[in-house]
């Protein structure tokens, strides 16, 4: 992964005062033109988000209402994506599942990312023994694969949406902290930080006004990746039966239990949630990739 070099970032900061400021819309438009795949990804994610928000109006059925008269029916006009083994409408469950996915994905990414950002930059800024200890703690936490740590948290606190969010957020924090820290370390050495201290600026002000903006690029990239990782992690936990529980509609949960049982006789029960997950993470990854390309100043000129 390439990150901006400190000199470029600083000059970019300095340049901003002289270049005409572009509106957000113009940023998005230029992004779409230079990174068409990324724009496509963004649209996919937007679609999922819209589905999530408008699920109560869009969904034709109540996602948790069992209908024993219509069990495992294939896609039809009445049920566009068929019904599952309880007779529940798959399309409605997918739409409401988008809510769970968005909530889990974005909450874990944001909370984990911001916590990691503050911790990573703070550690890089203060340096010394604080940084040394922090590095060791990061080493320990990073040595655990994500799923294993998440499994342990769920085992301790139990299942359910809130615990799943906590279980996934916790392993994400050190991953963000590590990336942000290495980026922040290079900024730490730049003379103007020392100058700022000499001027009497407080620690907090330097961290928030000067260091954090300069690690925005890698931070944003890491956060976008986190959303996808969180959604996949929730799916894995639910597959193991340790994630969100019935009857909550959630894509990962829909792939568990019944889906495998009915894989050959009623494949739509497993196919649609799997597609939903894949498409969402696909979109996020495309967007994240394009974002990285766009933010990398070495590639900017091209």
């Amino acid at each position, binding site marked *: 992964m390439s990150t901006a070099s400190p000199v470029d970032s600083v000059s970019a900061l300095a340049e901003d005062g002289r270049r005409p400021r572009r509106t957000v819309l113009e940023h998005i438009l230029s992004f779409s033109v230079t990174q068409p795949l990324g724009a496509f990804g963004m649209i996919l994610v937007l679609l999922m988000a819209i589905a999530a928000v408008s699920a109560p109006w869009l969904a034709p059925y109540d996602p948790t209402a069992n209908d*024993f008269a219509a069990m495992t029916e294939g896609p039809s006009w009445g049920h566009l994506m068929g019904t599952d*083994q309880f007779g529940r409408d798959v399309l409605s469950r997918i739409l409401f599942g988008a809510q769970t996915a968005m909530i889990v994905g974005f909450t874990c990414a944001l909370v984990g990312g911001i916590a990691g950002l503050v911790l990573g930059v703070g550690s890089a800024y203060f340096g010394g023994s604080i940084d040394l200890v922090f590095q060791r703690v990061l080493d320990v936490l990073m040595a655990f694969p994500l799923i294993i740590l998440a499994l342990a948290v769920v085992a301790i606190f139990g299942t359910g949406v809130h615990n799943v969010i906590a279980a996934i957020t916790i392993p994400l924090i050190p991953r963000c902290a590590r990336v942000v820290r290495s980026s922040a370390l290079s900024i730490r050495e730049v003379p103007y930080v020392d100058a700022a201290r000499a001027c009497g600026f407080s620690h907090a002000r330097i961290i928030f006004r000067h260091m954090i903006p300069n690690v925005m690029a890698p931070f944003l990239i890491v956060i976008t990746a986190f959303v996808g990782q969180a959604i996949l992690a929730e799916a894995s936990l639910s597959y193991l039966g340790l994630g969100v*529980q*019935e009857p909550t509609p959630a894509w990962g949960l829909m792939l568990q239990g019944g889906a*495998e049982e*009915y894989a050959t006789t009623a494949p739509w029960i497993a196919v649609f949630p799997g597609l939903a997950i894949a498409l969402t993470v696909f979109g996020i990854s495309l967007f994240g990739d394009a974002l990285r390309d766009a933010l990398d100043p070495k590639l900017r000129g091209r």
Partner: protein
Amino acid sequence: MKKITMLLAVSMIAAAFAAPANAAETPKRGGILTYMIPADAPPSFDGHRETTYATVHAAAPFYSVLIRVNPENPSSTTDFVCDLCTEMPKPTDDGRTYTFKIRQGVKFHDGSPLTAADVAASWQEIVHPSEGVSSARESYFVMVDKVEATDSSTVVFHLKYTTQAFLPALADPYAWIYEKKILDQDPHWYEKNIMGSGPFKFDGYEAGQSIKGVRNPDYYHKGQPYLDGFVGIFAAKQAVRVDAIRADRAAMEFRGLPPSAVDQLEKELGDKIAVQKSDWNCGNLVTPNHKKKPFDDVRVRRALALAIDAWHDAPALSKIATVHTVGGIVFPGSPLAATQEELEKIAGFWPDIDKSRAEAKRLLKEAGAEGLSFVLLNRNVDQPYKYVATWLIDEWSKIGLKVTQRVLPTGPFFEALRNNDFDVTLDFNCQGVVNPLLDVGKFLPHTVYTENYGNYEDQKEIDLYQKMLHEPDEKKVRAEMRDFETYVLDTETHMIMTPWWYRVIPYRSYVKGWKISPSHYINQDLANVWLDK
């Protein structure tokens, strides 16, 4: 004339070919039976200590027992036959003494002879385990005062009181006969080692993978076992087991598969698959925590029962989950079970569901618990726990209750139960040999039955039960059972029944001889199984 002769000849030849298919089949010797064990690995091989079917499915073929459910008629709840004894004894001394004569010439797999001393020592460990040894079913045998070997071929059981519950308890499929010499040296030896006198000899175990057995040529039931050997493969995942049967990597499994899997196999393999079905001596129950408000109020508990439309929903549920028969607290196939008319008087079994739900709402209002929301504790097992829970939550929503689920893996689940850390829990009552008098012990308060998690006291209930347990007259027992059932499910609504589990075993049709029973613990020694290949 010639034509008629020809016709006769042809039809005779046809009949000659058709006859073997209709006549009783003679077992063929030979072949290896490969079957799946729906578990990861048993904690140990000691049948006395364990309660998991994984131990039975893995090791029962290596051992003998004293008496057992008739392997040719295992769905009967009263047909017990001898395994190691010579004939079923009539109890003497007012029904308090049972004297068993042990077969001669039985040998353990290491060559040593099996005598009454071994039988008595094994049973002693089950009934009155020595220090440091745990016997999982010790409480089933509280009626036993003493067991002793009076000579090398006689074992006598002395009971404290007469009870109908003893003989079925004695047929316990976990009551394997161990060698006294080994037990004396090391009572824990059988946890990690296998050495019995059963139809198969131990031939290897790979942890988490498979267990193997080969024919015991000195088996005392002449002619058996028909199989050369068997391989039991461990696979906790249902999809793997179904695929294995589909691809003929294994012939069957012995626990039970849900209807969806069975349908799939039948559709795809046609007559290469045979299916046996049976009611299961297992069921889920709903247990409210009597010390948590508002479940201390019997009206709220009864409302929970009245909301459930079992009669109407059971047929649909039985298509997707391993449940089937609506019944009371007694196993549906037993003579002690309630008839439909008797059931319909009990809360939760009323034939008119609208009336039932209206009454439920009225009770909730009266108790001030309208629109109540609570958390249902459940165990992390798909079939049928999670399916039943999803169904119940929807049923309760129809009387305005908002219920969410809290699912825990087995360990933390038991912890939460023992600490009474729940509002309402999905509970289970799974027993081996159908023995209603002991099986309904589950409904007794914790002080009497440690596996009851309702968190209540009820002396009246205990009295009703004791009266029934000590009742010598069979007819009176049935009436007392009705009283007990009504008291538990309706008057106090201590617990709520959900449809009884249902065992459906699809298997490759070349497997013959095995018959299904109401318990996945019994009839697993595979001695009478043969392959038609």
